[in-house]
């Protein structure tokens, strides 16, 4: 941990975390940077097993933050903390504080369902519902009561599908089962489904791991567009992808956040040895 701290003291943009760790918990956004979500000293346990240890990170608004790190280091676990999906995982316990726009999302009065409406999630494996393409995208708006009329919903569906650059491919078969789509199409459908509820933050857990390079490129383009409106956090195993799409990168290692900074800094001038080893491929 000490190496991380010395590393971070040299990095001007990480003052916030430093303050969190050294002194009283004060979230003080830097000038010009909007902090959308912020984790302070988050630890996660599955039963007796600790999966995350004292994670503190700020997620900048309208930027793409990439989380990288070896398998099993807790990236997905951290992502699930941000929309409280860990609540439904049996035996999972969370310490620490996570805020969104300065509000504690684990406060008792928070409505988990509407939180998840604000923090959308795309899973590693495409998981369309066994319904029609249309109903998949309309699912969220209907649940949250965003639109009552058929044409309103239709408009949302068309808009979301076009944003996910899927509309052209499926416009003639909106009422066919979504399970009949290809893997890449299914994943874009899941993205369309997630953005249909107009979330503020979009969590993406290895969204391209099952996709070919072309579909991956389309989803990356899509993320570039979406970043204008949404705050995106993406977990990825691809260094190239992280460096291509993200503005900031966090490196997880065995349950701790070893290093976080701008993507350029992490990839060109990593301070932590473990980060350097991982990025240059010297990890097993």
């Amino acid at each position: 941990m000490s190496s991380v701290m010395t590393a971070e003291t040299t990095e001007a943009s990480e003052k916030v975390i430093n303050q969190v760790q050294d002194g009283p918990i004060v979230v003080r956004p830097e000038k010009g940077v909007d902090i959308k979500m912020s984790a302070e000293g988050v630890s996660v346990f599955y039963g007796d097993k600790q999966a995350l240890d004292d994670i503190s990170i700020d997620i900048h608004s309208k930027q793409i933050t990439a989380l990288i790190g070896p398998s099993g280091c807790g990236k997905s676990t951290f992502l699930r903390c941000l929309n409280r999906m860990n609540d439904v995982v049996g035996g999972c316990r969370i310490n620490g504080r996570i805020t969104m726009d300065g509000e504690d999302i684990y406060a008792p009065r928070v409505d988990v369902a509407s939180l998840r409406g604000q923090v959308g999630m795309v899973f590693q494996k495409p998981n369309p519902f066994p319904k029609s393409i249309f109903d998949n995208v309309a699912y969220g708006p209907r649940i949250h009561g965003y639109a009552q009329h058929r044409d309103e919903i239709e408009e949302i569906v068309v808009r979301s599908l076009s944003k996910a650059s899927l509309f052209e491919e499926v416009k003639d078969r909106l009422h066919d089962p979504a399970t009949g789509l290809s893997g890449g199409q299914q994943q874009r459908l899941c993205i369309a489904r997630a953005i249909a509820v107009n979330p503020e933050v979009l969590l993406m857990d290895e969204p391209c791991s099952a996709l070919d390079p072309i579909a991956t490129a389309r989803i990356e383009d899509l993320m570039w567009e979406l970043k204008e409106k949404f705050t995106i956090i993406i977990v990825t195993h691809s260094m190239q992808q992280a460096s291509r799409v993200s503005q900031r990168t966090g490196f997880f290692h065995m349950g701790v956040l070893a290093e976080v900074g701008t993507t350029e800094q992490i990839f060109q001038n990593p301070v932590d040895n473990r980060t350097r080893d991982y990025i240059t491929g010297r990890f097993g």
Partner: protein
Amino acid sequence: MVLWCAMPMIMVVLCWLVVEPWFVRPIVMQTLGSVAGQQAGAPAFQYLEIRNIAAGVLPGTSASDAVMHAVEQYKSLLRTASMAFSVMFLMAGVLGFYRGYKKLTVDFPAREQVEKFVRFFLLASSMVAILTTLSIVLALVVEALRFFKHVPLLDFLLGLKWSPQVAIRADQVGSSGAFGAIPLFAGTLLIAFIAMLVAVPIGLFSAIYLAEYARPSVRSVTKPMLEILAGIPTVVYGFFAALTVAPLIVKVGGTIGLNASSESALAAGLVMGVMIIPFISSLSDDVINAVPTSLRFGSLAMGATRSETIRKVILPASLPGIMGAILLAVSRAIGETMIVVMAAGLAANLTANPLESVTTVTAQIVTILVGDQEFDSPKTLAAFALGLTLFCVTLALNFLALKIVRRYEERYD
């Protein structure tokens, strides 16, 4: 190797069992005949007597000398025979062993031979089941055809009156009998409908609870307990329905001014519904559990609550499987006999009032066939016709259910 030995030995035993009586009997009877001449009593009876005395079942004292002589001979014959049998048995074993040993060269595919034998054995076992079923169906069809010689098919299927009393002798007074099966099927459907009204919601809700809400510890207790319901003999359900539920219905009906018969479709239906709950809950629980967790997470992550997730994603996804479970339960309800016989009555009323007594196809089959019967009166044959119709209906239901369940299974591969 063991097989090579055992097979001839088993063959010998089988042959022996078949041959023994044929072989021993004439000899014994001959002696008996030659000593005592033609005596009273059928030879078969005498032979039986001899055997019984020899086995010590009958005391030998009362028998005549001739018989005793025969008994002695029978015994000695048996001794020689069983010795011969043992020798043959051993020889067969040795022969088999020898053959097996000679065959046991390096490239003799022993394991393949065993495989072949195993396959044959398994095939034979399954053939027994299939052939039995086929012969049952055949018997049903043949007898039912005989029935339809007496009563036209359409009268049977569309007739509104069921009173299967036929004058047995020409001079007997009585109706000529009516064989309209509609009241029976109506009764069956009424009771099955009431049963499903009970079983479907309760079974489905407990399945949802088990699959979605129950903690593993609760589930591991609750599920077996529900399944115990399936293990209770239907007779027990039957007298529960007749002695507890039916009087209760009469009483409750009385207080709110309804006139319930002491044997009612409602009583039978309610109890049958309880009996069927575990079918639906257990099968639906499996089906719901088969819905991938990723769908659950997907829906929850969209901001759906748990019950929204169940209503809008899980149930639609598992609906075909649940339909299959329900259809299986329906065919079970239609085939159920005991509860109906005990609690619903035997009067073939054509009614939709669940407080009246009705009867069902299965209950009628029972009443027709219990007691002494003439095997070619239309009354008896009617049972076969009813059985055949019932068989067709449940077969169709089962077929449909299995098809639906199977299609559902393919979906998540």
